[in-house]
């Protein structure tokens, strides 16, 4: 968690010295744009910056929550149905889209059951932590068309740091629920997240070697160069094309990070009955669920930024491309969920520590050697 992020920060800063920083603009790009729209002028005071930043955050937060709202009650059902030869929701509204409203009303109007003996502050904080940590991560993601709330130099480290806060939420939910299934789920999730966060971050570090910066806008900018031109179509130097091995590793580790098949063991409905979620109902359940989907989207956003050129793409505006890429990753997780069996906890740990970790380090060293030889 924070410990891992710290290690990566150090590792990355070593590489940074050889890189050139790329010098993207400091500060809060979206807040500046909002400030201009509100007529605050180019030199905003602290109060004006705060207002503009809040409006920007409100916009990004709502965009992501709206996407989650579409994904959770509707898209997930439709996608899974398509994979499993079914139709899914089609009665409420066109294509069943109004199920989103119906489900929201249904879930929010349910009774919030607080079981006996739950560890109260922790039990309440956990869902908020899970949803909040994912939302925080979106603050530094460049989404194209100048939509980026903040662009710190250590953007990548920040994203990993806040997104791994979710593990804290998981273990708090599992432990505080006073339910043995939840406890098992919490323990499993912590074991899984530790085992897979390291390969995730190490693989991301190999991208940092290429880009020479931890700043997300810098990483996106580094991918705009054409890699090769075939028949007049230039293929950009997205890191998914430059280093497909790292891309595959990252996708796999990301599946574990967001807890989807084959790595959905913290929930494992048929074994430990949804694990840490078991005792949550009503609004807390919604928050849990939102948190999960936000994490899938955040994972997609990180993948898009690190490997798929961020918002880059022809014809359509950047933000549209960005959302398409996020949804593509979401589709991938749903595909895995429909088709791949779940591994066992000991196998998962084995794959994580003996397989992924070794591969990710090999990838890092090889990348360093190659970049060192070329540069």
């Amino acid at each position: 968690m924070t410990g891992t992020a710290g290690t990566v920060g150090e590792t990355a800063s070593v590489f940074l010295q050889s890189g050139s920083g790329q010098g993207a603009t400091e500060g809060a790009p979206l807040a500046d744009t909002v400030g201009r729209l509100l007529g605050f002028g180019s030199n905003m005071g602290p109060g004006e910056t705060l207002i503009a930043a809040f409006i920007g955050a409100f916009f990004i937060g709502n965009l992501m929550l709206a996407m989650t709202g579409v994904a959770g009650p509707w898209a997930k059902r439709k996608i899974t149905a398509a994979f499993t030869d079914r139709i899914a929701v089609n009665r409420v509204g066109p294509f069943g889209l109004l199920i989103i409203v119906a489900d929201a009303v249904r879930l929010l109007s349910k009774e919030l059951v607080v079981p006996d003996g739950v560890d109260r502050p922790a039990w309440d904080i956990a869902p908020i932590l899970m949803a909040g940590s994912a939302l925080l991560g979106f603050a530094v993601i460049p989404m194209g068309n100048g939509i980026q709330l903040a662009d710190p130099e250590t953007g990548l480290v920040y994203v990993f740091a806040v997104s791994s806060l979710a593990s804290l939420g998981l273990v708090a939910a599992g432990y505080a629920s006073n339910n043995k299934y939840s406890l098992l789920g919490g323990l499993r999730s912590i074991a899984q997240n530790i085992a897979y966060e390291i390969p995730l971050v190490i693989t991301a570090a190999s991208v940092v070697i290429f880009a020479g910066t931890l700043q997300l806008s810098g990483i996106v900018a580094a991918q705009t160069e054409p890699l090769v031109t075939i028949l007049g179509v230039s293929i950009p130097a997205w890191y998914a094309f430059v280093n497909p091995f790292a891309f595959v590793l990252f996708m796999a580790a990301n599946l574990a990070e967001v807890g989807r098949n084959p790595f959905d063991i913290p929930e494992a409905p048929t074994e430990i009955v949804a694990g840490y979620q078991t005792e949550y109902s009503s609004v807390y359940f919604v928050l849990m669920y939102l948190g999960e989907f936000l994490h899938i989207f955040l994972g997609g956003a990180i993948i898009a930024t690190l490997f798929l050129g961020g918002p880059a793409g022809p014809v359509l505006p950047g933000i549209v491309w960005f959302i398409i890429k996020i949804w593509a990753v979401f589709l991938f997780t749903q595909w895995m969920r429909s088709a791949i069996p779940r591994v066992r906890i000991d196998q998962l740990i084995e794959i994580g520590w003996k397989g992924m970790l070794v591969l990710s380090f090999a990838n890092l060293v090889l990348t360093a050697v190659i970049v060192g030889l070329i540069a």
Partner: protein
Amino acid sequence: MSLEDPQDQRGAQDRELVGVTEEGVDYDALEDLLGEKVIGRESHVNAEAFVIRPDEVQDTLFALRDEAGFDHCSCLTAQEYEDRYESIYHLKKYDDPTQEVGVVVPTSKRAPRSQTAEPVYRTADWHEREAYDLIGIDYDEHPDLRRILLPETWQGHPMGMDYNQDQPQVVTFESHTNPLAEDHKGEESDTMFINIGPHHPATHGVLHLKTVLDGEQVADVKPDIGYLHRCEEQMAQQGKYRKEIMPYPDRWDYSSAGILNEWAYARAAEDLADIDVPEYAQVVRTMSAELSRMAGHMLAVGTFALDVYGDFTAIFQYAFRDREKILNLLEDLTGQRLMFNYLRLGGLAWDLPEPREEYFDTVRDFLDELPQNVEEYHDLISSNEIFQIRCVDTGVLEPDVAKSYGATGPVARGSGIDYDLRRDDPYGYYPELDWDVITEDGCDNYARVLCRLQEVEQSARIIEQCVDLLEDWPEEDREIQSNVPRTLRPDEDAEIYRAVEAAKGELGIYIRSDGTDKPARFKIRSPCFSNLQTLPELSEGEYIPDLVASLGSLDIILGEVDR
């Protein structure tokens, strides 16, 4: 569970087995073997039975198992007469189930005590608990003689003769044992007690597993059954043979395997009352039974995938898609999708639906698509690498252990036991058809799934041949029902134990007639009941996910376990 050493069962095979002749079992030789232990001899319709003293049960059974090779304790029937209690052990051989023998153990009315058979056949553990629970016979030296189907606070033994039906069974919540009361903290290690079920996504119904976990590993698991007990035996005893019992079997194994269950009753009752079944009806029975088996296996494979994969995945839906087609075929045939009630004693309820050609075409279309669909299952399930690391070498059931527990069906065949009543104890039209018994030597969860998938293909072969036969059947010979008296009264004191190969294994029925039009004792030998008993063997020491997978691979239907 008994911790005693499993007896060496292989030793028996090296020696010449007593009582084996060309024509079947030589009961006189067996009587000589048992010597003075035999105090009487009974003739059941299916086999001879020896009456022995209640304190010589183990000696007798050991002798029969080790010297005469009766390695399959198929069933234990307990019943109460006016003057005595009686336990009947129905013994068979896995190599040749037509070789049967009964061991009758009468016990006195005042103190019904009998020696346990658990050290000989481990399956006797649960069977004797059931006999104690419902009839009230005490089994001495039984390792764990508790109620099994009824709650532990139940008063009286409901299938006993002096049971008062009007006695109130109200007990306070406090008087139930609290499964959480036990402290599971050991000196060395911390274990955790956890109730899996009765409401849990992986228990396939209402099964309760009292599980002790050591971290993620299963230290101990005790299945607790009876949540779906519906007095099926009692209800069957109150129905007339001819038509009032047939609807009940559909409710035992309700995974669309109803016709197989009906056949179990039909076979036992027809043999008891000496009723012939026309050949044409046998072919239709065979076809419909195999459709039922396919539907049952599809459900088994689909839900097993659900247990291993974790969510409603493609395989589950594909299995249901194919099952749906089978259900449509069965609906056309029987008018029902779940509770078929299609078989009658001596025949069938009605002939194939008209127009016959159209029906045959639908069946053929389904059979034509099937190989492709089975290939799809193999792509998604058996050749999936993650599935293999999850299922290969997990939930191992050694053949000896399986035999001792009386495991049958795909569970036994997945452990390499070549035992299929359709071939070994022929009935219906099976002997005339060309098909294979599938066995897999893996002994693990993977082998059991492979077995089911291949059995689906074999069932398709059988159905195809049946359709060919039915298509060419001359119209004037389409006899679906033989002459059966309006009121069936089998001979007084006739007893029979007959089994068929149901979707889950050997489904046996014991009927004792008392000369009236209703059975005096109707006992169901459920394959799931015996198969579920192996669960602790499969899962102790393994991880929770393997426990869930093993449970899924046993393919239990709680309606049949609890009856």
